[in-house]
């Protein structure tokens, strides 16, 4: 009798533990992710439609969006192309210094964006190694678009590589070799065989890269000088609007950036699931 009661109480305890853990995980994500998101949605909604039209008609805001778009597009295109290339080299070739390259790829994750900005200033700013070279050709790097793109690319380097590399390892070389024995050139093999195999990892890496480029602020703040209407990106605008007590505008722009990133990630997840159901793999 008592033994049976013990068994029951043990089962109750395990149910309790399981329930507790689920609650903890849900609470953790809800409090840290959903609550702030809800807060910003609420604040923007309270500010009303007039805030939306007023904010979006500001020339500074429009310019900030435009600048963020330009930086993001260039960053994503280059980190995609060079990311796939680097992942390919790391996965398919063995060479001296491969381990070092592999470690270097993670560096941008480990270094604070502020430090990235400072390094860029040291290279291209007054008295920097490359300053004379670009100045003599009339190219303004610091406090201008080139440096802003440069630091954003630096920060976004790891995403595509880290998503694509494990997929390349997993699919192995069999299919690529088969393709070549069937007469396909290296380019045909890459386009017809490798690319379709890595496409989900690649898209996910691109989405992460996009989200990170949209949200970048630390490094850009340092190299851009944050000149209103000229080198002010969307995130820099949010910072200024907040400091100037124009909270509703800041919330709206912040929400729009978050929405784009979330939309991208959700779309890719959905596409992937849909495709997986159809092809089952």
């Amino acid at each position, binding site marked *: 009798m008592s033994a049976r009661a013990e068994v029951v109480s043990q089962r109750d305890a395990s149910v309790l533990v399981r329930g507790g853990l689920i609650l903890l995980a849900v609470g953790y994500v809800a409090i840290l992710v959903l609550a702030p998101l809800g807060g910003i949605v609420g604040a923007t909604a309270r500010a009303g439609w007039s805030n939306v039209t007023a904010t979006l008609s500001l020339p500074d805001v429009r310019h900030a969006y435009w600048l963020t778009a330009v930086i993001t597009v260039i960053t994503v295109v280059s980190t995609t192309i060079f990311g796939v290339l680097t992942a390919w080299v790391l996965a398919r070739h063995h060479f001296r210094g491969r381990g070092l390259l592999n470690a270097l790829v993670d560096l941008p994750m480990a270094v604070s964006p502020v430090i990235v900005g400072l390094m860029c200033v040291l290279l291209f700013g007054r008295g920097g190694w490359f300053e004379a070279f670009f100045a003599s050709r009339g190219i303004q790097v610091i406090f201008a678009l080139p440096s802003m793109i440069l630091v954003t690319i630096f920060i976004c380097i790891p995403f595509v590589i880290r998503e694509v590399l494990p997929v390349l390892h997993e699919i192995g070389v069999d299919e690529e070799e088969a393709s070549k024995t069937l007469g396909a050139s290296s380019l045909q093999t890459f386009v017809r*065989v490798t690319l379709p195999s890595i496409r989900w990892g690649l898209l996910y890496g691109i989405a992460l890269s996009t989200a990170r480029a949209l949200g970048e602020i630390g490094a850009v703040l340092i190299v851009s000088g944050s000149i209103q209407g000229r080198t002010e990106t969307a995130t820099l605008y949010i910072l200024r609007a907040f400091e100037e007590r124009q909270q509703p505008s800041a919330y709206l722009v912040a929400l729009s950036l978050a929405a784009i990133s979330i939309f991208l990630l959700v779309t890719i997840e959905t596409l992937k699931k849909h495709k997986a159901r159809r092809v089952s793999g």
Partner: protein
Amino acid sequence: MTEISDEQTRLSEAGRSPAIRVANLTKRFASFAAVDDVSFEAEEGKITALLGPSGSGKSTVLRILAGLEHADAGRIWIMGEQLDNRSVQERQLGFVFQHYALFRHMTVRQNIAFGLAVRKTSKAEQTKRVDELVGLVQLRGLEERYPDQLSGGQRQRVALARALAPRPKLLLLDEPFGALDARVRQELRKWLDQLHRELGITSLLVTHDQEEALELAHEVIVMNLGKVEQIGTSTEVYNDPATPFVAGFVGAANVIRGVVISGRVQFGEQFLGGAGHLDDGSFAHAYVRPHDVWVGRESRNGSSSPGRIERMTDLGWVTKLQVRLPDDQLVIADVPNDKLFGLQTGDAVFVDLRKAKVFEPPGTARSDELSVA
């Protein structure tokens, strides 16, 4: 004048040149020679098997032929054409991989058509050829399936159809049935044999399965540790092994250890013939196949050895007998169940070791070198 005669020699050679000719192929990985001075020829329209244990270098030879690996030394001719500097694509050889290597994001149809599509063959031609091959490999109705919706055997047949689609000069098969279970392997083996009879395409089959090699191949090249041990027909490598390795690897064999005395191998009080090629007093290993061991209650002739049955395992149609010889060596005999005549475990019997192949113990030559060093 000499030029012409050279040309004539070349032409006459080409006229009877083998489909595949490999000369002195060597490939090293770091300090380890995966392929060590391998030479062989393979006849046109036949299946030739490269047989050996894993690590014997057989797959590396195949991959070098396909152009997937580069040899450090040696030359390759296929249909009389020297291939060493040709790229994988230019060689136009069909390759079938152990793990199928099907394009997982393509349907069966797209997989088979791949080799045609990359060569810019017309759509109509592609469809025609794919339909033809789907019929040939008996996969009609599965054209729109993806590889992961097929069984292992079906996948390998798709892989074969895909390799055959661009009409390759040669078919290279790398352990094609290695990833399949025994039953499917048997089925596919029979099927491949039939397919080969229909198509007559020159094929090189890499396998570690001696039964597969003996059943499918016209000629078998036995490899071990990167070297060729023997080249011959199935009958030759099975019945007349050239080296102790071949005797032990191709088919099961008992190894009887003894000493050579005037052309015979002495073990305990017993003798075995066939050691005329070895010096008196040297050690010898005699290889005897289990089905060549005769077991009976009475001595058949002077060379029968007494023994005692230690263990009997009934395999349905044949019984495996473990017989202990007087000098304590163990012999396995496969005796058909209708030839057992009531033998029991523990019975005292006579064994006759027939068709023994006697070799120097493996490594003898090397131990000499070592002692000199």
